[in-house]
């Protein structure tokens, strides 16, 4: 429990309206998409970096943990107040401060919802490519903190590739800026990149400087069904080998297709055991040619059927197959563990075979889909938690999946981060020495370990 004195200080900084110790509010900020639950002692809604600075100074001297939170859509528990303390919500910091069309740079506050930012810049003919599937509700601050990625990463890269400067409040309460609005900048250590993906453990992001691109004129979508996952994987290599980088290269494995087939009336032929959604963007006149070339290059690789969308509505219909996955999985089993391993592109089929073997060994369905273009596989372990022993089996299976990915030169997380969900597995991927250096950085910035403690690394 937090002392009344601390709550009074917070109220002094923020005003009564923006500090709450009401049980209802504590409950409402106790969860994220991992569905775990930890109650904070107090929830605060600051509006400025100056206010956050005062909060952090107080928290640092009083040694009270602070947990930054955007939309709470995280899949690794990053925003959960695992030790009580203060949940600091960025919901009020949701202004787009500047869009500089001439220099292709924008400055925003962290609570801006990703899609809203995209829509605003697209109206100006500009483009912010990172597109996590949660873009309609997750915040740019959360995206930066997790270094979120999405289907368009194959061509454009992840969130950090578009972040060129930040303002952060350090755990000790200083307000510092990193990087800036220039396309180049090599003075000093690149703290911007360090903060991107630091999962809210090194500083609270209060302002984000974003690099923009011109909006591509058009895009075209195609859906290709293959007789095997190998065909699909070879297709990915063949496309990229032919110097075409699509915007999107999404895949679904045979089990995913089965789920969709069972749960919806979307037509997918029986012979299809893997499927790619390929999207290209750019100047209108090049697109048709690119699509033709892709179709030709992959034709010998066991293609069962190719569908090319001619209108946005047809394109939407193709994406519908991908979008129906989530709901169709629930019909397999009620509870889902969604892991997001990433392996080198060419190792995708091998990884899927490993996962299939693990699924068989433990007798639990595992369904794979994801971003073939960058080797990011969403491994969905489907269980019914109500059945005794299932959860434990799932845990073992997941550990084997991680190990499998690592032996192929991959990583445990391509998108969702470590948070608390993967913290126990960190030693599998990061050597003790490397971990020591990381912890040294944390120690330097946050000597009292008050900012998002217990995340990424287990506290011991």
């Amino acid at each position: 429990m937090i002392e009344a004195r601390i709550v009074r200080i917070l109220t002094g900084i923020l005003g009564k309206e923006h500090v709450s110790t009401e049980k209802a509010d504590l409950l409402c900020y106790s969860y994220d998409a991992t569905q775990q639950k930890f109650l904070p002692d107090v929830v605060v809604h600051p509006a400025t970096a100056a206010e956050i600075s005062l909060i952090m100074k107080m928290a640092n001297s009083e040694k009270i943990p602070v947990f930054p939170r955007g939309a709470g859509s995280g899949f690794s528990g990053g925003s959960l107040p695992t030790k009580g303390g203060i949940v600091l919500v960025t919901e009020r910091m949701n202004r787009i401060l500047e869009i500089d069309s001439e220099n292709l740079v924008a400055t925003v506050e962290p609570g801006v919802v990703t899609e809203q930012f995209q829509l605003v810049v697209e109206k100006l003919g500009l483009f912010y490519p990172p597109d996590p599937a949660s873009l309609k509700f997750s915040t740019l601050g959360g995206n930066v903190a997790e270094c979120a990625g999405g289907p368009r990463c194959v061509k454009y890269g992840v969130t950090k590739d578009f972040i060129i400067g930040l303002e952060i409040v350090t755990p000790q309460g200083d307000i510092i800026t990193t990087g800036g609005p220039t396309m180049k900048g090599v003075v000093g250590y690149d703290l911007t990149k360090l903060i991107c993906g630091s999962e809210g453990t090194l500083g609270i992001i209060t302002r984000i400087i974003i690099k923009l691109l011109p909006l591509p004129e058009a895009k075209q979508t195609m859906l290709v069904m293959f007789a095997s996952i190998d065909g699909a994987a070879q297709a990915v290599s063949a496309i990229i080998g032919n110097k075409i980088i699509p915007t999107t290269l999404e895949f679904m494995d045979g089990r995913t297709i089965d789920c969709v087939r069972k749960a919806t009336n979307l037509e997918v032929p029986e012979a299809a055991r893997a499927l790619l959604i390929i999207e290209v963007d750019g100047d209108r006149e090049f697109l048709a040619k690119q699509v033709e070339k892709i179709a030709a290059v992959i034709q010998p690789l066991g293609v069962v059927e190719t569908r090319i969308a001619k209108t946005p509505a047809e394109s939407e219909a193709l994406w519908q197959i991908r979008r129906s996955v989530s709901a169709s999985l629930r019909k397999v089993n009620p509870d889902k563990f969604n892991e997001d391993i990433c392996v080198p592109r060419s190792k995708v089929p091998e990884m899927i075979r490993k996962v299939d073997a693990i699924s068989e060994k433990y007798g639990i369905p595992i369904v794979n889909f994801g971003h073939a273009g960058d080797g990011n596989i969403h491994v969905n372990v489907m269980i019914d938690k109500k059945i005794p022993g299932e959860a434990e089996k799932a845990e073992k299976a997941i550990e084997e999946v991680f190990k499998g990915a690592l032996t192929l030169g991959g990583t445990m997380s391509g998108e969702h981060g470590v948070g608390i969900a993967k913290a126990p597995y960190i030693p599998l991927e990061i050597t003790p020495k490397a971990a020591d250096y990381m912890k040294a950085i944390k120690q330097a910035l946050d000597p009292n370990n008050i900012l998002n403690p217990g995340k990424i690394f287990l506290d011991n």
Partner: protein
Amino acid sequence: MAKLKDLEAYREEIEQCVKCGACRAHCPVFGAERREGRVARGKIALSQAVLDGEIDFDAKVMEDLSQCLLCGSCGAGCPNKVPTEEIVAAARRRIAQEKGLSTFGKGVAAVIGRPKLMNALAKTGGKLSNLLFKKLPENSGLRLRFPVPYLESGRTLPPFTDKPFRERCPDRIEGEAGKPTVAFFTGCGINYMYPAVGEAFLKALKFLGITVIIPKDQACCGLPAVAAGAGSTVETLAEQNFAALTREPVDFILTACASCNAGLVKVYGDMEGECAELGPKTRDIFVFLLEQGLAEKLAELPRAAVRKVVTYHDPCHLRTQGITQEPRAVLKALPQVEYVEMENAGTCCGLGGTYSVYHYENSKKIGALKAGNIETSGAELVATDCPGCIMQLQDSINHAGGKQRAVHILELLNEALPD
């Protein structure tokens, strides 16, 4: 016996919420006030905590649960289709049971539960409608009848009619042999505020030769009572409507109000008892008219040279049932209409029945977004399929200083059909 489900009965639905946060993109209340307690996920978490005995219905929980339009937008956008609006309604019933109905909730239950009183009130309202915009003295009995926030908020209300629609029309209008027979469920909006919509309804059905029965003893569908948590009132009304609508055999029950449609289809559909039988028979007027070949008949009419630019607002209670194309198809088929689509036609207008009474400021904020979209669409008329939406849309336009008018599609159809 009609029986609504208890909050406990929703446990499974509640547990289906995976806390992904997707509803943040769909909830109009959250859009106006970005606090987790205001979004579906938060309201579900609170309902769950109440069921688990982790928290009581304290003032804050009740406030958060009152902040819901029951629009169903969250459920429609939810990957797991969690019916938050039903959960919130069930939670409000539980609150009413534990704490008693709010004063306003009591008012709602007393008025809509008694059609005679409602008729009397509407007539007084008709005479006093000018007065409604002015402050009434504190001790006026009307203050109890018409919720104070309405009177003090500057909301523009349509004038109540002197003679309710159902008192003006016959019990039965004979159509052509071999065509279906339908019952018209008028709902309160049409009966007391927009009788012209009711007239237009009858004209449209006459045009197609349909036999219409208008049971005089039908009552309010009960949706305001659902919102207020007045469960037993809803149950009584459902039974009353069941009796009224099944007295004579009909092929369909037609509504021209999105909320009534949802009331009959969804609320009654979820009840234990025979009232649930009404749902499958109930059709939205435009779904029915299209099935009866209205579009083809309209296509035979000459296209007007000068046409009105009209846009469409999706009432939540139809949109979340997947009825979005039919009203548009009728509008597009009208000879005197030039149809334009507005941006975000599918977001809630902000009325939410009793929501706009308790939370008029938020309701206005949500409505203001709508008014802006109507303005940018370039339309002179915004047509819809729900009297409640019409009222709210007009109020929002008035507050924004716009010139557009909100109308029911049936009014436009009325203009197009030969007398």
